[in-house]
């Protein structure tokens, strides 16, 4: 009897194959591995059925706190996910395919990615998009490296209001290169324009900003774009795609490279991944883009079709001279992003963005009624804002976790002197009831 998972051969078939090969045993096929190098036994436990395995996974999932109410973001957001997304991205023809190297039998993936690139271009107001990157943090690093290639310079200025995790990823990517990263200290949760002016000169490859930034502040970087361009540098903006339902697009601001994390577009939180990163840029930079790009063309009969294009940029052709080392990207998550955007549609995304704003404004008003609670930034926000509490934000958050509420992201660990600051996120999924409950608990916590 054959009870080995997913290995279909019967002993008879194995015998026939060994005969065809001309060896006496399977073990003989491993003869090229010198005996002295052979592995000792594995300590991984013996196998189980899929039923037992699923029960075990349920047990593991059950060891996490259930039903937490999220007022946290930090780059990943609790948004609605239309049910069609699971059903369509769950088509095995999509999810059990590989990178579409053979276009004739991969038009499904290729056309979908072309449509995805179109959606990203329209969302960001820029000319060209690739077929996805890994996540928002690595997208920051890829955009910075792209700017280094485009300008031939080696200095990157980063607004301290950019997501601290993304800034750490950027530093990690670049630490072994001859690149200078200059961080601008924040000013009340906003870009410190005077501080930036002090370090901005004609040696800068790019300035990296985020909108809305980590504190939730919404800004307009149009003037900054002109300033940076006048010095021969590029402006990179990390953006939150749902906010682009209403917020000024990077293209409208004159941004050169727009990036971001696509999780909010139809991908579950899933403890941080898989998500996808996106990148869009001006057309003149296309040959410096990282990763896969799908292009339109025609077949031998003049019929429209799609292929992976500009592959001369890529590692499998150019090896060490490639624009990036990316092979697998996050294709299926990008497909989910496309289905999300096509499901909510043009007006739907605008409405969804506005709902986020509405909920956050309600929460902002409600929470700042609590004695001693004020707003950090005197600036417009989208669905996140920063509160100044009359107590340590870390203490408050840790206490409220026990009540099933993830109350926000305390800024203390990321910004010196911000121990009382708390970034609160309110997506369209948070109900008035949840917000009111949160406000009552916060008030109680602060009174103690």
């Amino acid at each position: 009897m054959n009870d080995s998972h997913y290995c279909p051969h019967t002993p008879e078939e194995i015998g026939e194959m060994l005969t065809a090969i001309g060896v006496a045993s399977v073990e003989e096929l491993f003869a090229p591995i010198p005996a002295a190098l052979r592995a000792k036994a594995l300590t991984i436990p013996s196998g189980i059925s899929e039923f037992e395995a699923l029960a075990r996974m349920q047990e593991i999932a059950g060891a996490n706190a259930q039903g937490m109410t999220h007022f946290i973001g930090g780059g990943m957001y609790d948004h609605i996910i239309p049910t069609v997304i699971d059903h369509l991205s769950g088509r095995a023809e999509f999810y059990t395919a590989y990178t579409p190297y053979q276009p004739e039998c991969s038009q499904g993936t290729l056309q979908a990615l072309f449509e995805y690139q179109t959606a990203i271009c329209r969302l960001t107001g820029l000319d060209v998009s690739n077929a996805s990157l890994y996540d928002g943090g690595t997208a920051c690093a890829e955009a910075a490296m792209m700017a280094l290639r485009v300008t031939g310079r080696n200095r990157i200025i980063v607004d301290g209001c950019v997501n601290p995790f993304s800034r750490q990823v950027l530093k990690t990517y670049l630490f072994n290169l001859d690149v200078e990263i200059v961080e601008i200290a924040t000013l009340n949760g906003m870009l410190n324009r005077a501080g930036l002016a002090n370090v901005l000169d004609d040696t800068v490859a790019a300035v990296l900003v985020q909108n809305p930034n980590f504190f939730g502040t919404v800004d307009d970087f149009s003037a900054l774009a002109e300033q940076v361009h006048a010095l021969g540098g590029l402006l990179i903006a990390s953006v939150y795609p749902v906010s682009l339902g209403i917020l000024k697009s990077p293209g409208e601001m004159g941004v050169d490279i727009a990036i971001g994390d696509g999780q909010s577009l139809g991908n579950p939180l899933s403890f941080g991944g898989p998500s996808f990163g996106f990148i869009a840029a001006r057309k003149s930079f296309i040959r410096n883009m990282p990763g896969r790009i799908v292009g339109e063309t025609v077949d031998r009969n003049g019929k429209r079709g799609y292929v992976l294009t500009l592959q001369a940029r890529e590692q499998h052709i150019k090896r060490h001279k490639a624009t990036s080392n990316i092979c697998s990207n996050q294709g299926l998550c990008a497909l989910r992003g496309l289905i999300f955007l096509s499901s909510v549609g043009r007006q739907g995304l605008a409405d969804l963005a506005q709902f986020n704003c509405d909920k956050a404004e309600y929460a902002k008003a409600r929470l700042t009624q609590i004695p001693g609670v004020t707003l950090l930034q005197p600036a417009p926000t989208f669905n996140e804002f920063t509160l100044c509490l009359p107590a340590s934000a870390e203490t408050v958050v840790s206490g409220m976790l026990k009540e099933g509420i993830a109350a926000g992201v305390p800024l203390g660990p990321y910004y010196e002197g911000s121990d009382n600051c708390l970034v609160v996120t309110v997506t369209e999924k948070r109900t008035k009831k949840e917000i009111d409950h949160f406000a009552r608990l916060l008030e109680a916590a602060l009174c103690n």
Partner: protein
Amino acid sequence: MQLIYEKSVPGRRGVRLPASDVPAAAALPAGLLRSEPARLAEVSELDLVRHFTNLSRRNFSVDTNFYPLGSCTMKYNAKVLENAAVLFAPFHPMTALLPGGAEFCQGTLGMLHDLGGMLADLTGMDEVTTQPLAGAHGEMTGILLVAAYHAARGNKARKKYVVVPDSSHGTNPASASIAGYEIITVPTASYGDMDLELFKKAMTDEVAAVMMTCPNTLGLFNPHIKEISDIAHSHDALMYYDGANLNAIMGKVKPGDVGFDVIHVNLHKTFGTPHGGGGPGSGPVGVKQALIPFLPQPRIIKDSQGRFQLDAKRPTSIGRTANFFGNFGVMVKAYTYMIMLGREGLVRVSEQAVLNANYIKERLKPYYDLPYDMTCMHECVFSASRQLAHGVHAIDIAKFLIDRGYHPPTVYFPMIVKEAIMIEPTETESKATMDAFIEVMIEAAVAAETDPQALHDAPLTMPISRLDETKAAREQNVCCQW
């Protein structure tokens, strides 16, 4: 087929949003708003479902077609893995990073910790980070660890090079280059592996690391691997193992036992998680003791009470390589796969993957040139050079296979084999499937001699014929202009 944007009708909607239960907020200042909504598709839910369902039918996939794409390990992806992943959909990664938050994420943190332990056991490594988001991302992470190691020993300026064989995956030199190294490429010898004498000449104290795949991209296990790693170590160079071909050796040899210091593992290859049409992958990195201080943070550690905590205060860490904990959903699938198969099952996977590759190799040998004729591991590499004499290229054979319902093997890689055809059947394919594929490959070899035009014309049964790739690269039409 029309684009979704060509099916768009102004005012149509696919999904109704939930009603808002709070008052409308005052509009943001006009200067912060976009001038008009983004021109996204406007379609009904049924339009959307038909569109993407019909698009999906224009793909070959493992569930519909044999997919022997060499180096990509296109094995069957068990359905239960999908059911396991959705159990974790609601968990926000930020929760674990809140003060005291780890206590509320014991399941997810514990699973990552256990997965690292199982991968360390399989690969002979001491510790594993699960942050890297794909194989190439793991390579870059691994080489950055090497860079941090050399820098900590005061050797940053001296260590300039990474050595790779010319048969390596393109990602190896690309990853090392992005991490700041120059590349030295060593040619392959007639015995199918990096030329040992040329390797010795290439090695100096300026080499930071040697990156190898073992078995290599010809599907051959390098018998000199211990000698190579000893030579590398004598120059204080570290040995990097590209785990793309791990499916060949589970339980047979552990890279850590033969001198490798750092390894990435492609969960989407060896551990049965689906490739998603190009991702998401997942590329955990394992290291030996000497590299542990440099691993990305936060690290997941098990405290004395057996609780899992995050440690983000590691001064020598290279930092973050991703914003959160890696492609967690992919790791759930790999973990489920590993506990299901268990130690005996994983060894059987490698045995039958190797059996299947050798079976195809022996059966096709009379019909196609086999430049390195020896026992292979999980894949075998033929050359269409015999067919080329009739004007038939590897790409023509690939397109003929598409007409017969087979996803083609990898062609033109490794680059060191002229007209390469790289076949990796994986362990999940039955003898009957492989026999049918072999017959079609033989048919292609016969057609190359008798009717080469038929191969040049292929494919004829797909929605489109061969595409003009030059036009695509020239016109760079990468988004719908309409």
